[in-house]
């Protein structure tokens, strides 16, 4: 066949398909005309009109079958069937809106769960670094003599001195095309009438060049000499900031931004989608730096390997002078650069795995539930299918029709699910996490996520539909026509029962996990934290070292404290380096009298701290005005520290070797410093007056209106210096609770999904039992007629539910134990096999399941023997 002919035929088929309605009409018309010719012909041969008509019809035979065959001849059979099936499915489903709606809602819940987890996974793990040839980039870190590693994740402490970076960069030339560095932090951006914190990155001038990025507008930093020179007053802004503050106007380039009190010239806009080299830490501005500490990365030369680079740099790095012996470099590490740093990758992937597992479980419940629904429906439609089969529909045809229905529903449900997921992700994204820097993650549903969700929905539709469809298609036409429901319950019944058992088992898993998380949260909420956070508002202030040297910084904080004391909105205020549960940043080992080493965590606080936070003073005194810079170094310790270092002795007057010997002047009650479920931890407070910190959190206890107290704090800061932003403002209780946000989200979502699963399962078991009751009503009628008591009937039906329940509890609890083990690290202070949780879930579960089974069981006993016997 020539190409032209093929094309011609294809054209005709397409034309036929598009003109389907008229083609169908054509065919009907043609058949009708044919009959008329035939009748005329017979009349000409002498038949009466009635006789001619009758015989012509008889000879013509089954019109429908001919039409089918005629359609076949068109060669557009399968496409046409699909269109027909879809139309038929739409009609059937419209006629049973409750069934369709339930199935769509159910699917959408499952798909939403999967979509949410997968979009997070997609955003966190699967996205690649937005840079040119990102696979040639290496993240460079070093391991120090004290065992610490300069990583990218902990921004404050373990980064590399800039001068060392410059020396290493020189040595790296043979292996690396370029080597750049950055550090992340907050800066205060001053706008017309308010100063607010924005995320920033201080970068080496070649930062963008090594990443291989091009500006959206203007220029990125040019790679000029930076040694010793003060950085040029330049800034690059993010695409998002440009859109938000400049409405994407190219005139942004050349304008001035006031950042941390400096006037910086906007040189350009970073490319769209680029917020920085680490996931979540999204910068809005980049400023050049040539001092301080930075995190390093580099680009390998085309033929160089990471190993070559490591060899080239290690020797140089080891020879570099260090601040102290502990910080001496012992070796270098070169890892592939990724949005998720290698160090935290496994933890991230692991926790995502738990959620993925949960979401899959929900999806399984959904699929089994819909499968169960289709089973029930298939039983109900036996007569319809039998009629279709007897009218000559092939079994494949019937099966395809039923599958079309389940798949169509699952696709609609899937789309609804993706929309729900998108809305929920938006809500999740707007939550601010309790971390030092603002975290920005892009959870948008992209093509990859959508494709997966679509696949999941489609699979669930096929899985849920295929077994019932197959059974319907194998229907014995005779018995199907004879009694609408009934017969052939053996295999179908077994399959339906196992659907229900699985579904119940999966919802037990969800409920148990939700129960464990909830119990862990309840415990966390009732832990004695050793302080009173109600009515306490916080705001963090970070002073620029450039503007505030130690002396001026001290003055600033002192003046702020005395100003706040004059405000009537504030009952009392205090300064501290850390908020509770964020206490554990600094720690040092101190020798215990028994020779062991005690790890002492410490933080800076001022004289008002204990009073403002209502931490009971157990002995001695808190800091006061007499503890100044030049007086005896002092410390206030907690009970645990006092007990461990000076057992049986009076701790007051002892010396604690922390930054030199410090005299212990007071003992406060134990609190919680890192986690709510932590073991007693040694903690020491150092006075602000003796150990300066440029970044402190102001704790204010409101007198009445808490918002007013916060407003007062902002006003006083602005009065002292309009270039300072008060960061992370809010209620302390919220800040503390936010440490448990992931657990809270998990408990809520699992609880909701678990209850949803239980409800679905209850419907499932109700359906199964009701179906069996309907099938056996004849039998019950006979038994009742022969004198069986109603209770016997009820019991015999109830026994089925009990069997199903016991089996699903057995499977469900063993699965739940396995899953809880996986999630163990997220459930504080509650064992994976917590008996209370398991018992509570099983009791709730058994109650619901038995109730769902009892209702149809009772109905079985109410069968009127006369009616049920007459039915068949």
């Amino acid at each position, binding site marked *: 066949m020539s190409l032209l*002919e093929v094309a*011609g*035929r294809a054209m*005709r*088929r397409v034309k036929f398909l598009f003109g389907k309605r008229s083609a169908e009409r*054509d*065919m009907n*018309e*043609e*058949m009708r*005309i*044919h009959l*008329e*010719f*035939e009748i*005329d*012909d017979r009349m000409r041969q002498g038949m009466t009109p009635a006789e001619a008509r009758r015989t012509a019809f008889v*000879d*013509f*035979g089954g019109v429908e*079958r*001919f039409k089918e*065959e*005629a359609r*076949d*001849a*068109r*060669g557009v059979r399968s496409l046409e069937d699909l269109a027909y099936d879809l139309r038929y499915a739409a009609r059937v489903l419209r006629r049973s809106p409750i069934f369709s709606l339930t199935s769509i809602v159910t699917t959408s819940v499952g798909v939403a769960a999967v979509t949410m987890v997968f979009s997070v996974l997609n955003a966190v793990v699967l996205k690649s670094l937005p840079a040119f040839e990102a696979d040639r980039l290496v993240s460079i870190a070093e391991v120090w003599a004290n065992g610490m590693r300069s990583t990218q994740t902990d921004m404050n402490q373990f980064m590399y001195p800039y001068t060392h970076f410059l020396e290493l960069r020189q040595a790296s030339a043979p292996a690396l095309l370029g080597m750049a560095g950055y550090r992340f932090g907050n800066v205060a951006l001053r706008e017309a009438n308010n100063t607010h914190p924005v995320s920033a990155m201080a970068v080496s001038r070649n930062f963008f060049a090594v990443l291989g990025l091009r500006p959206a507008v203007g220029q990125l930093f040019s790679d000029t000499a930076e040694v010793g020179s003060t950085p040029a007053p330049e800034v690059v802004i993010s695409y998002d900031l440009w859109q938000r503050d400049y409405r994407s106007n190219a005139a942004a380039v050349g304008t001035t931004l006031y950042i941390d009190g400096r006037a910086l010239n906007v040189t350009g806009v970073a490319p769209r989608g680029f917020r920085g080299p680490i996931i979540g830490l999204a910068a809005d501005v980049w400023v050049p730096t040539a001092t301080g500490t930075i995190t390093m990365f580099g680009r390998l030369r085309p033929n160089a390997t990471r190993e070559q680079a490591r060899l080239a740099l290690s020797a140089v790095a080891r020879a570099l002078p260090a601040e102290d012996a502990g910080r001496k470099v012992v070796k270098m590490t070169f890892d592939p650069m990724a949005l998720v740093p290698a160090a935290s990758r496994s933890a991230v992937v692991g926790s995502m795995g738990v959620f993925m597992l949960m979401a899959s479980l929900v999806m399984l419940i959904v699929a089994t539930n819909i499968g169960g629904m289709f089973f029930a429906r298939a039983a109900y439609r036996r007569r319809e299918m039998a009629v279709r089969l007897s009218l000559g529909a092939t079994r494949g045809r019937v099966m395809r029709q039923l599958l079309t229905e389940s798949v169509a529903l699952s696709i609609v449900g899937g789309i609804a699910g993706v929309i729900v997921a998108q809305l929920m992700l938006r809500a999740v994204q707007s939550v601010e996490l309790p971390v030092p820097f603002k975290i920005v993650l892009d959870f948008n549903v992209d093509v990859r996520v959508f494709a997966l969700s679509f696949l999941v929905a489609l699979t669930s539709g096929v899985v849920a539909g295929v077994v019932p469809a197959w059974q319907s298609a194998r229907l014995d036409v005779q018995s199907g026509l004879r009694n609408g429901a009934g017969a052939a319950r053996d295999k179908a019944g077994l399959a339906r029962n196992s659907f229900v058992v699985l579904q119940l088992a999966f919802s037990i898993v969800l409920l148990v996990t939700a129960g464990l998380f909830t119990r862990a949260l309840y415990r966390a909420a009732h832990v004695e934290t050793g302080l009173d956070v109600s009515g306490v508002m916080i705001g963090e202030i970070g002073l620029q070292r450039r503007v505030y040297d130690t002396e001026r910084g001290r003055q600033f904080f002192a003046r702020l404290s005395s100003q706040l004391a004059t405000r009537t909105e504030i009952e009392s205020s205090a300064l501290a380096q850390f908020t509770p549960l964020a206490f554990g940043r600094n720690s040092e080992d101190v020798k215990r009298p028994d020779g062991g080493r005690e790890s002492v965590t410490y933080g800076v606080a001022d004289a008002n701290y204990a009073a403002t936070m209502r931490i009971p003073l157990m002995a001695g005194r808190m800091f006061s005005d007499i503890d100044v810079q030049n007086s005896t170094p002092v410390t206030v310790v907690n009970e645990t520290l006092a007990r461990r270092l000076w057992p049986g002795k009076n701790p007051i007057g002892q010396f604690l070797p922390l930054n030199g010997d410090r005299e212990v002047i007071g003992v406060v009650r134990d609190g919680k410093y890192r986690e709510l479920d932590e073991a007693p931890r040694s903690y020491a407070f150092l006075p602000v007056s003796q150990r300066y910190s440029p970044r402190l959190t102001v704790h204010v206890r409101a007198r009445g209106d808490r918002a007013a107290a916060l407003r007062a704090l902002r006003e006083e800061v602005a009065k002292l210096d309009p270039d300072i932003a008060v960061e992370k403002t809010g209620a302390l209780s919220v800040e503390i609770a936010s440490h448990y946000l992931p657990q809270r989200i998990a408990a809520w979502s699992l609880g909701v999904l678990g209850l949803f699963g239980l409800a679905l399962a209850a419907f499932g078991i109700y359906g199964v039992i009701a179906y069996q009751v309907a099938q056996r009503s004849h039998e019950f009628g006979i038994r009742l007629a022969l004198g069986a008591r109603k209770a016997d009937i009820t019991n015999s039906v109830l026994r089925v539910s009990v069997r199903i329940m016991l089996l699903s509890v057995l499977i469900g609890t063993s699965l739940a134990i396995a899953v809880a083990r996986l999630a163990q690290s997220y459930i504080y202070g509650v064992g994976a096999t917590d008996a209370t949780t398991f018992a509570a879930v099983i009791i709730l579960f058994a109650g619901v399941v038995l109730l769902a089974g009892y209702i149809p069981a009772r109905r079985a006993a109410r069968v009127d023997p006369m009616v049920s016997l007459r039915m068949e």
Partner: protein
Amino acid sequence: MSRQETRDLLQGTLDLLILRTLDLGSRHGWSIAKRIQEMSQDVLRVNQGSLYPALYRLEDQGWISAEWGVSSEGRRAKFYTLTAAGRKQLAAERQQWRDFSTAVDLVLEG
């Protein structure tokens, strides 16, 4: 009875008969069947159930084309016409049939 005969009609022969009938001019479905019946002196009866699928198949292959028109009796009907490709096909099939029937004759007579 006619159904029985149709089934006896060799597979593929119907196509040839239809093409041959249309070689003499355009016709509508019923008159094609009637014409075949007449030309075969009532031996071959074409059942409607085979006729229309065959017509659509031939149309799909581009050997005949269809158009609505009015019959000599003044009745609206769909008329089928042999196309150029159909004419070629007819020649080819006719040759094939001759070869086939000669071969069958040889076997039967031999």
